[in-house]
């Protein structure tokens, strides 16, 4: 693990292969179409499988999953305890584990602590519970500033936190994926678990918003 590491030549070869991109059309729609037909011709992909994956991310996986986890934790203290102790197991109980979300940690927001999740190095995100990340989560502004100026970023999302609240930013550098357990809003005592789940937003589970009643 030195700067003269064995990775150097390996990396240089890959970097060379990236040179092709300057010779290809700039419109990604054209490039991806050509890639799909090439892969299909070579038998490296079945276009129907692409359809299946698109359907998974468009209809089967999304923030509704995470919202169910949150709502259950709000109404079921024992579940909440299990979630905070071993989120992988607790989310597994609901059959909501999967790729990019096999090792889960839940972070509880309280009046004194606010958690915020980012991946500065790429765009790691808990796919099985939140679906695909929004464009802003993957963008340079969020990745660069969430760690240096989390309060400024939150303010841009309309969330101004008092000085005494401790902000904990979680940079997803490994394969552990983070889900924020937002505070249950006041005045929701009478709502059912399902009604509560409908209040929980994706942004609140990333930590850039609170849940409002």
């Amino acid at each position, binding site marked *: *693990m*030195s*700067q*003269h590491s064995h990775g150097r030549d390996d*990396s240089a070869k890959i*970097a060379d292969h990236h040179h092709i991109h300057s010779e290809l059309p700039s419109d990604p729609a054209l490039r991806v179409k050509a890639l799909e037909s090439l892969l299909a011709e070579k038998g490296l992909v079945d276009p129907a499988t692409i359809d299946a994956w698109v359907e998974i991310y468009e209809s089967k996986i999304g923030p509704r999953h995470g919202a169910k986890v949150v709502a259950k934790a709000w109404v079921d203290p024992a579940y909440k305890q299990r979630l905070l102790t071993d989120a992988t197991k607790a989310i597994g109980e609901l059959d909501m584990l999967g790729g990019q979300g096999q090792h889960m940690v839940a972070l509880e927001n309280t009046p004194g602590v606010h958690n915020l999740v980012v991946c500065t190095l790429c765009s790691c995100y808990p796919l099985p519970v939140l679906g695909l990340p929004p464009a802003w989560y993957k963008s*340079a502004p969020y990745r660069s500033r969430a760690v*240096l100026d989390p309060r400024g970023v939150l303010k841009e999302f309309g969330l101004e936190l008092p000085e005494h609240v401790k902000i904990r930013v979680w940079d997803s550098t490994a394969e552990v994926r983070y889900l924020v357990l937002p505070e249950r809003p006041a005045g929701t005592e009478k709502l059912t678990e399902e009604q509560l789940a409908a209040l929980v937003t994706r942004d609140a589970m990333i930590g850039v918003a609170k849940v409002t009643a």
Partner: protein
Amino acid sequence: MNSIHDMGGMHGFGRVEAEPNEPPFHERWEGRAGGIVETMSFPPGFPGDRFRYLRETLRPDLYLTQSYYEQWLYVAEQILLEAGMISAQELRDGRPAAGEAKRNDAMRRDVVWDYLHDRTHTGRKLEQGPCFAIDQRIRARNMQPEGHTRLPRYARGKIGTVTRHHGGHVLPDAHAHWQGPAPQHLYTVRFTARELWGEAANARDTIHLDLWESYLEPA
């Protein structure tokens, strides 16, 4: 600011591509662009450090794709726009708005040579003596200013040794933002390559930076 211009220690840019017998300008426009920026009228009292700062504000992907003289053009445009000496509309049209009075105070051909040898410089006499002595161990401060600074990220928080004192110099961090010259003592500080880059670096090699007094604290 911690932007893409602060390149020291980055990977991913490939090899250094040296060009044999490189001409001063590769195309005619490069010389014209350089000449425009060097000889055009600047806003009164324009602080030289602001030129560098404005270059740093170029969008990061454009900073990496635009050539040096293109970046100068961008800076020249920003300077003139900021000062209201040209308008965005004029820049798009390439001609002055109707009814503009033409100025007659631009740098003339016969003073260019003198301008290139003018001795206006950033050295300043300071009343107060320097805080740090030659051979003193110092730590470069860990700071993340959003504005202009000449303390590269790779040296922040690292310990070095003062090797030279240059007297007072205009402080870019203030000057670039129209806050006056605010001169401070300037030092050359030597860092070992291992302090900056870790144990895998060469044990003999050193990196030297010119750093202002407020960039430093005793170590």
